[in-house]
């Protein structure tokens, strides 16, 4: 059983029922649509099947052909070497919580841990990028148990850092992610949408499947009425005195405008975008992955 903070035994039990989620990650998205450039990365034999036009001739088992004069393909359990990279925003703003039990970072960490377990449980590879304005930790994709433990430890020891710059982090991560795969970004996206998608464009062109999970505390979605209050920025430590009653509506309008911009840009680039509150169960996010 797991003793990790972000991977609880009961969560693992639940995740066993989310098999389709990982399957969707691997098969629903890649199978029959992309050819793997990494041949023989998976070695677990699955079955022989007869060659059909369109199959890769390189997959033909020539030994069987020599013996039976028939074309058979030797298939393995995974046709591709799936890689999933999880970006966890660890800027100071992710340490915010007001109405929820978890900070946004904790929420993101729980989801990241579960997702990592799910991916590795299907023998796929999962990597981790912990960033704020820079890449703080880079864990290349792997599918071993040890790798998962390392990832869970990293998450557990992770603390909210300084200012955030997702765009900068994505730029810096680009040379580190060598193989095409899936990118899952968990962030509060307090950054300019245009900058974010500018940084995502190279990944999109390389054929990455990208999921953006916009994690917000309910206190951010609908600002709590505190009256006259002094707000301290968790990233810059700047402060501002405002009357929350006066800005409540404007805040909601501004946030709606921001999320709409993210949603529009995501839709135009076939990027999956999900806004989620930290009061929701992070298991709901797996449903988004299944789509």
């Amino acid at each position: 059983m797991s003793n990790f903070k972000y991977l609880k035994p009961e969560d693992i039990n639940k995740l066993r029922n989310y098999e389709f989620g990982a399957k969707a990650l691997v098969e629903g998205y890649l199978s029959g649509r992309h050819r793997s450039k990494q041949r023989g990365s998976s070695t677990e034999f699955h079955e022989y099947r007869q060659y059909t036009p369109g199959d890769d001739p390189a997959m033909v088992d020539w030994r069987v052909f020599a013996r039976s004069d028939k074309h058979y393909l030797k298939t393995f359990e995974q046709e591709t070497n799936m890689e999933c990279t999880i970006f966890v925003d660890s800027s100071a703003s992710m340490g915010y919580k007001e109405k929820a039990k978890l900070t946004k970072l904790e929420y993101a960490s729980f989801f990241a841990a579960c997702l990592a377990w799910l991916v590795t449980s299907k023998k796929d590879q999962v990597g981790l990028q912990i960033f704020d304005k820079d890449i703080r930790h880079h864990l290349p994709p792997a599918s071993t148990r040890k790798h998962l433990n390392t990832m869970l430890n990293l998450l557990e020891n992770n603390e909210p850092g300084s200012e955030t710059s997702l765009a900068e982090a994505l730029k810096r991560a680009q040379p580190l992610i060598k193989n095409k795969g899936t990118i899952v970004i968990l962030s509060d996206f307090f950054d300019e949408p245009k900058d974010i998608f500018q940084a995502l464009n190279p990944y999109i062109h390389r054929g990455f499947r990208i999921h953006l999970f916009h994690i917000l505390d309910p206190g951010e979605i609908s600002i709590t009425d505190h009256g006259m209050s002094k707000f301290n920025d968790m990233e810059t430590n700047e402060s501002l005195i405002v009357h929350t009653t006066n800005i409540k509506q404007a805040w909601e309008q501004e946030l709606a405008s921001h999320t709409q911009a993210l949603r529009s840009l995501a839709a135009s680039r076939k990027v999956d975008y999900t806004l989620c509150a930290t009061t929701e169960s992070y298991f709901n996010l797996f449903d988004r992955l299944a789509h």
Partner: protein
Amino acid sequence: MSLFTNNPALYWLLALAAIPFIVHLIARSNPPVHQFSSIAFLRKIIKKSSRYQKPKDRIVLLLRTLAAAALLFAFVQPLLVSDKGSIGGDDKTVIFVIDQSASMAASENASSRFTIACDEAATILSEIEPDSANIIWINASPEAVFPAPGPNIDYLTKKLQEATHTPEKGSINAAIQLALDQLKKAKGEREIIVISDFQKAPWESTEIFIPESIKLTKLAVGEADLANIAITSLAAFPVSPVSGQNVAINAQIKNFSDQPKSTTVYLNAGGGRQSAQVEIPANGQAETEFITQFSHQGDIMVTASLSEDTYREDDQRHTIIPVREQLKLLSLNKKESSPQARVLHRLATALTWISHSSHSQTQKLPSIGTTDILFIHQWDGDNIEALTKLANNGTSIIVTPSTTCKLTALQQLLDLAPVNSNLNLTSDPKGWKAATSKESSEVFSIFKSGEFGNPAQGTFRKRFELPKAWSNASIINYNDGIPAIILNRKTSASRIIWNLSYDPAHSDWISQEPFVTFMAELLLSAQPSKTSMDNELISGSPLSWLLPENIDSNNLKLKNNKGEELTTEILNTTQGTSIQSTSPATPGIYEWQTGSSTIKKHFVNFPASESDLTLIEPDDIPTGESAKKDDILRAEALSQGVPMWPWLIGATLIFLIAESLTASSKKNIS
């Protein structure tokens, strides 16, 4: 206005009004700190909304401060007190001078002006609760409810409820003077409240003098000028006709409105009825004339009436025409039996409506009223003053001068142009002819057709050389321009100089056919037209009659035109026994009866000056202050001090609602 407070010790509470401001400052200087993920968005929002938000914040702060100040000020219990108010403990005496005149009967919507006036007086009386009060009615004889202002407000209120308007003119000055007299003895605050429609006619000419120590308040109850048509005059010509004589009854109708009106005038003269349609110009008048005759002597009751209009009080007018059997002609002669007197006697024999008597000039002049026409033959020019007095009082004077008469006497009697010559008697065997010189004179109206010939037909061999300068006043001139008959009718009676001989020895005029006709017409036209005021009484005055000696007052009854008997009282005056009604007269016809016979008639008409319902603004009357009922009540409340706390609580609520609305107002800044 002054502001007093019941709890000045709590003034310190007002300092707490600064709490919202202090709270605002404290809240800004040391607000609770909240860690927030990103204030970049907040900065963006504030940048967008600051133009709208800052003034809004200041307004909200101001409203909160005002709400707190109003609430706290309520605890001090302020009182708003008028500077004109009485000092506590002073007595207050109020006299209501209420217009009860005829114009107050005009209706304003459903109620008459008088009813409104009484209602408003009752309201004011009950609200201001003076220490003593009184009511004085403005009518023909103003009178007060109490002999002096008293504390019995309930009785005054009851009197206000019972009172009705009177069809009388209002004696404004007398009413005000009565109020001033009553207030002389009053101490403390003294006030006269005049409640009236402020009818233009009586009030425009009224000057009111009020001492500075007495406050005069004018309260108008009439809202607008009312259109009205009224019969303002009804007169008969001649005033006292003889039976069978044509009588012209003239009715004058006035239109007090800006629109021309058409109405029907009905006349009831001694039972005979006539009607006429009359067109009256806007703000103008029209006259209609009814010609009638009366076959018998006696006092004939005549009533003219109009189709009813909005103001009915003045739609009827009465008069009494005393129809006589004969005109009284008295001739004064130097000799017992002069030829001229004989001619007149024969004339009277022919004209049955003339009663002729002849006296020698040694007798005194007749007393006033005993004769209609006094014919003085061979007048010496004496007794001019007595004759003038007789003429002024309605006796027509005809004089033929004597040789001793001076022109100045004739000039003085008829008020003719002065001349410097002597009066000479001349004769000419051939004689002179005469002719009418003023055919427009009513004397010759019958001769206009030519059927009756030349009224001065004949030859005259003796005459006085009257100055030709007087010929413009004559109605008949000799052919050479010497005046033959000079007629002057400046008063109600005629004055005539007779220079046309009817002595058979000096003219053949009396044998001419037109003579009798001319004399009859002349005597009828010389008939006095002075109106006898004996029968007419003024509305509002008692129906009074100074009894002749032969009338027994005990059997007299006074009845109105409905046949109702009115109560009377007998007064013994220096002039004799008088009987009068106990209640004031209202328009109508009244009869004094003994048994079943009527021995005297009186008529009372609506005062014509009350028919003009045009109003003036109370401010146009320089004395006093004009006010509405609410103004008076407010002023009274202010003088006693109006507690401000309910208003302050109300203001607090209003400020809080305004603050709430302002604070919750949203502006889309996206």
